[in-house]
């Protein structure tokens, strides 16, 4: 994987670069602000970007805005936002243009190197990686369809929102893949999602959470 890192704290920027190189990924550029990120992406067109949300100069949401632009201009580049906070509103904005190729994780999650790298790989491959916290916040949201889900179906949907595949969900919940498929069908039914392509419905189901947050 070819990766660009944008993070204003040098210690984390270097730590991430080392972590990824150790795992055999190529870090094309490690920059400290959103402007540098845009330039590096234009130059390298990486497979994935790891971007802090809050960076100079305004220290508000420049990473998020850069992420949205990068997703629009470089569809082949996945963007993983990496932040101290999970803000539901940020999640919604990130996912407004589609749920593929994006991720949003708390910085703490680098503690689990294997999971962090696999989340980044998922994003690079066009999948989703949402922090369990995002999902946790959204599951507190009331929604008639969502409210009728069984606890098991909620667990499945939570992992789906994190961007896991069926086998990933099965492994996470120690279920058989068949059981996972059954739960997913139940979720689609309760959320009244028309059968189109399975992938599309997955995205719609996840977006259903996120839309209620707007």
């Amino acid at each position, binding site marked *: 994987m070819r990766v660009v890192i944008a993070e*204003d*704290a040098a*210690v*984390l920027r270097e*730590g*991430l670069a*080392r*972590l990824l190189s*150790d795992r055999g990924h190529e870090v094309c550029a490690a920059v400290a602000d959103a402007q540098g990120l845009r330039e590096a992406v234009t130059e390298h067109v990486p497979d994935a970007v790891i971007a802090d*949300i*809050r960076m100079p100069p*305004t*220290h*508000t*949401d420049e990473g998020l805005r850069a992420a949205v632009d990068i997703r629009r201009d470089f569809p082949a580049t996945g963007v993983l936002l990496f932040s*101290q*906070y999970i*803000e*539901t*509103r*940020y999640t*919604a904005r990130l996912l407004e243009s589609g749920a593929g190729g994006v991720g949003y994780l*708390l*910085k*703490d999650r*680098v*503690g*689990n*190197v*294997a999971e*962090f790298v696999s989340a980044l790989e998922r994003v690079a491959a066009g999948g989703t990686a949402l922090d369990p916290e995002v999902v946790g*916040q*959204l599951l*507190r*949201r*009331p929604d008639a369809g969502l409210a009728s889900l069984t606890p098991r179906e909620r667990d499945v949907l939570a992992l789906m929102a994190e961007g896991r595949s069926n086998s990933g969900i099965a492994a996470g919940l120690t279920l058989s893949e068949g059981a996972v498929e059954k739960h997913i069908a139940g979720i689609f039914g309760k959320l009244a999602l028309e059968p189109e392509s399975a992938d599309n419905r997955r995205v719609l189901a996840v977006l259903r959470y996120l839309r*209620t*947050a*707007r």
Partner: protein
Amino acid sequence: MDGIWRVTATALRAPFTRQARADLAFCLLGALTGLIGFVVVAVVQLPALVISASGIGTLIGLALVVAGLLIGRRLGALHRWTLRKAAGELVTAPARFQPGSGLLGRLDRRLRDRDGWRAIGYAWVKLPLALAEGYAVVATAIGLAEITYPLIWVLFRNHPPGTKLGPLNAVFPVPSGHWTIATWPGTVSATLAGAASVVLGVWVARGLTRLDARVMLSLLGPSRVSQLERTRAIAVEDAVAALRRVERDLHDGAQVRLAAVALNLGMAQERATDNAQRELLDAAQAGVSGALADLRRIARGIHPPALDLGLADALASLAATSPIPVRVRVELAERPAAAIETMAYFCAAELLANAIKHSSANQIEILIDEERTGPLRVGVTDDGVGGADLARGTGLAGLAQRASTVDGKLDVSSPSGGPTTVTVELPMRVQAGGN
């Protein structure tokens, strides 16, 4: 004896000092501006009173009053300028006038322009002061002229003996201080009186300048109330800015360090070879996660990140975590001041938490809008059981108290059986109430 001499010497030296020239310059200008200012204010104000009192033409009267207030402020600036330029004494200007919005709002704010009214008060007080200042200048001028009488006599009265001449007039600027001089030795009396007159004029000018400066300070300077309003606004804004700084320091400092520790621990965990090591590293990792979660909670209590995007986004994020459905509407034409935005957010957050905890409601609505005349309203309504009381419990009273630090207020409508609406009104700017 020594003391008397010293006082006398000081008194007599006074006319030759720079201070004397400054005082006289101020008195001359002060007399002119004071008289003109008084006439202008009186011309505008007296008809205003008459017209308004007559009941007809109240509108014209109001317009004249407003004009008077405007002129009063302008004149105040002129008087302060005169004092500074001539006498070198500085009176700080009161805070700038903050216009209201809407026709009535503007009029209301204008009529309650405390500093404008004080300036008009000064224009009236200045009348006797201006007359006295004029007196000091005239006394000095007469004195200077009279000192030269012996010389004038020699130059212009040097006629052959026997020529009939009218006597010279001499005055000392006090009532019935007038006499005539018919002989040259008599001119000495004029010289002495002139010198005394100059000393008198200079000292009166000195006293008047000081008095006028004090009057200006109390009527044309910032009023105590507006000064307090200003410093309170600074204190409120400072407090918010300081908290914001703490949050930023946490974000750029401790939180980054801990995230880096998590990263390094993660890499160490990957390389750990035996179970004992792995267990210790797991425990360390769990500790770091807990610390980061704590810091996040603290930081969110100081300044929620989504507030950077505005109240609508911040409240949407807040509502997303509520177990009771929340509808958020934010209808603001412009963003309020940062300190007010933060206050409005935390008011809404606390009211929402109250509603969730006590109301057993099915639906909560947060509405933030702006009244036509200015204040920002934070309204939280729930369809729950009602019975919220400002007097009971400390939550609402505490909120009311916090709102009052910016002249905001809190209103509760909560009949038993619901619905409950709590409204907090805050100014759009911290100092909007000041003028």
